[in-house]
């Protein structure tokens, strides 16, 4: 709080550099409409990445979030379509859908968490497994195609993504709230302390009367819940889900967390950093679309270079630590 944290400063500088770059490349970049777009699009990955920050800080990992989001979107749509004839085209049906997404997320997180803490399997393997399972299930539910929300419901539900308070749409508001709550929880709550302690050295945590398994389980639950919440915001956007929904979101979420200065090995969580990481990733895409570059085939390469550069900025600190 007193001195600037270099781990946060690095990504922040990268973010600012990107904003400046974007503004120079295209004047439309700073237009409110574009800013709204970028922020609202960041919300899904952002909300998930906040949850991922807790999982990684506690020394875990979750590769299943992208597939989980697709699966949750699938069952949410099925549930709403099924409830439609009974309940009708009203908010009741939509609330049922939201309930299914959130509850489903919690259960999915519980499954990951229990396999990791109770069956004691490496998080990488558990979530690699559930990643395949969720992805398959949604493809199967959709019969290889796309699950679509009934047209009337979609119209009713749409404002949850597109509406809001002026320029500030609901996804942005929800993301902001989750980020603030996440940062608060990591910094000021017992849970956050315990998460950092476990990631730092889980034996010390155990010897400090912390219920390590419970806290770890809670991180996966929390992440599941947040994936559910992201789904609640995702479904009204296109009103559909398929086997290709949420592909590679896990990689993006993890990358955002690490770009933000959270250590992959755990013990040091930076929720603000994660938010910055998410924005950096979204901005790269946005800037590449707005600018006219050599060849769109090279987008991925430019993206890669910028990601690496963004992290170079926080390297000095680490170098000095060493001896």
């Amino acid at each position, binding site marked *: 709080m007193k001195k600037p944290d270099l781990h946060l400063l690095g990504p922040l500088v990268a973010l600012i550099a990107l904003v400046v770059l974007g503004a120079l490349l295209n004047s439309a970049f700073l237009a409110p409409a574009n800013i709204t777009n970028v922020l609202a699009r960041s919300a899904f990955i952002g909300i998930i990445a906040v949850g991922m920050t807790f999982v990684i800080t506690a020394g875990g990992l979750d590769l299943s979030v992208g597939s989980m989001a697709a699966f949750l979107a699938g069952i949410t749509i099925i549930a709403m379509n099924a409830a439609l004839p009974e309940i009708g085209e009203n908010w009741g049906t939509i609330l049922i859908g939201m309930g299914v997404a959130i509850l489903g997320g919690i259960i999915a997180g519980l499954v990951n968490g229990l396999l990791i803490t109770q069956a004691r399997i490496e998080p990488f393997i558990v979530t690699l497994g559930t990643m395949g399972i969720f992805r398959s299930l949604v493809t199967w539910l959709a019969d290889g195609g796309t699950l679509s929300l009934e047209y009337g419901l979609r119209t009713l539900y749409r404002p949850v993504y597109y509406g809001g308070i002026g320029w500030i749409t609901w996804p942005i508001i929800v993301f902001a709230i989750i980020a603030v709550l996440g940062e608060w929880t990591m910094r*000021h*709550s*017992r849970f956050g*302390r*315990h998460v*950092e*302690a476990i990631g*730092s*050295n889980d*034996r*010390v*945590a*155990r*010897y*400090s*009367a*912390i*219920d390590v398994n419970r806290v770890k389980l809670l991180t996966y639950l929390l992440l599941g819940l947040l994936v559910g919440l992201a789904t609640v915001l995702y479904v009204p956007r296109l009103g559909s889900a398929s086997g290709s929904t949420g592909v590679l979101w896990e990689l993006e979420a993890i990358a955002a967390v690490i770009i933000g200065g959270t250590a992959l090995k755990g*013990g*040091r969580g930076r929720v603000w950093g994660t938010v910055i990481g998410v924005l950096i990733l979204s901005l790269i895409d946005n800037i590449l679309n707005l600018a006219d570059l050599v060849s769109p085939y090279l987008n991925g390469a430019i993206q890669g270079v910028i990601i690496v550069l963004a992290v170079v900025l926080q390297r000095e600190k680490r170098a000095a630590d060493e*001896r």
Partner: protein
Amino acid sequence: MSILSLQNVSKSFGPIQVLHNVDLALEPGEVHALIGENGAGKSTIMKILGGFLDPTDGQIVLDGQPVAFASGPDAEAQGIVVIHQEFNLASDLTVAANVFLGRELGGFRLNHAAMREQTAALLKRLNTTISPDAKIGRLSVPDRQMVEIAKALSRNARVLIMDEPSAVLTHREVGTLYEQIDRLRAEGVAILYCSHRLDEVAHLADRITVLRDGRVVRQALQGELTEDGMATAMVGRELEDFYPPKGNPAPEAALSVSGLTVPGRVHDVSLQLRKGEVLGIAGLVGSGRTELAEGLVGLRSATGEIRVNGKPVRIDSLRDAVLAGLAYLTEDRKEAGLLLEKGLRVNLTLAKLEKFGTWRIDTRAEDKALARATQDFDIRAKDSNMLAGKLSGGNQQKLLLAKTMLPEPEIIIIDEPTRGIDVGTKRQIYAFIRKLASEGRSVIVISSEMTEVIGLSDRVLVMREGRLAGEVEGDAMTEDNIVRLAMGVTSDSGKAA
């Protein structure tokens, strides 16, 4: 002529100066003891000599030539070997692999047999039964220390620097260590030895340097300083009675344990701890004292009946134990005690965060608690924002004590309470433990320091091979009796062991 010396060396970490114009010379065939309070700068001196730190000012002189070591390994290449205060072992590797790490035997293919054999020979010389193929991660703390010593011995040092090698060892192993030191001294090795056990210093040292607050305050030859003299020189004032007077435990039991068994480690142990009592538990390394304590507080799965204040309690996890009013201070402070990469405040309150707010952790209250603990336990931290890992070893131990005491437990089990703590502070800790008892709390002290168990406890239990071997009380609490019980010999004739 001295082999290695420091001339006018100063050292600062950032704005904080921890060494001031230190002069120190090591002679071949001599044991040079370095003593001082916790945080006086002993480890810092040793790290500078071993090439692990650069002095901010002044010179290191090797064989009459000024040198600047590039790194620890660079110094080691010149025959300067350091046993660090903290372990330097890779816990996924075996004992033999650690002993030969960085200097593996064999040509293209590693010569496993030779390394195993030589390691076994070294360990045998140290009278331990550690297997060369054991993984370090599965060894107990004292065993790891023995491996460290074996590793240092394997390097054929000209200068051997030992930072509190005996702190985590018991009586018997310390004996073996002395033998090795005597042998090396006879071979002409220069030894720098740091310890808080002043009897040890009096016994071993040819020359003593006393450090206070980063300055050399006294240099003496063997015999010039008594133990009391050393303590006075270190602390800068006279020390009064070392052990506080014994207490007067109430008759009722605060804790009673019957038939406690930790599979494979502790067998059928029953004991009673009275209110206001300080109960010592003695035994050799590996006798299962730590396992007993860990089984009792739910850190290991154990069977048996536990009653607190007469009421039976179920303890399946440390949390249950804490709820029942028990606390346990671990002997493994680096790996189970403190988060070395976190600050002092976070460490202090980790086990009792509930105390600092229901929802939001009140950092101000935490800071206050830290300030109090710093005072109560005399934690010498130059900067309260520093990481726990940057504290000196003894000060880490004090922080751990403070952390364990924060929940204000009724029954406290302390495993090796004064490991690496200087004499002055030891006295404070003893007084503190006694104060707890006189307030009606009960304390179990597990210690490998015989004088400590005897001086501090109202009663001593002795463990051997996972079982209670006996109990001594009052005048029967002598070193002789305890050692005999610990070794399993009943008559004087068996003492040869």
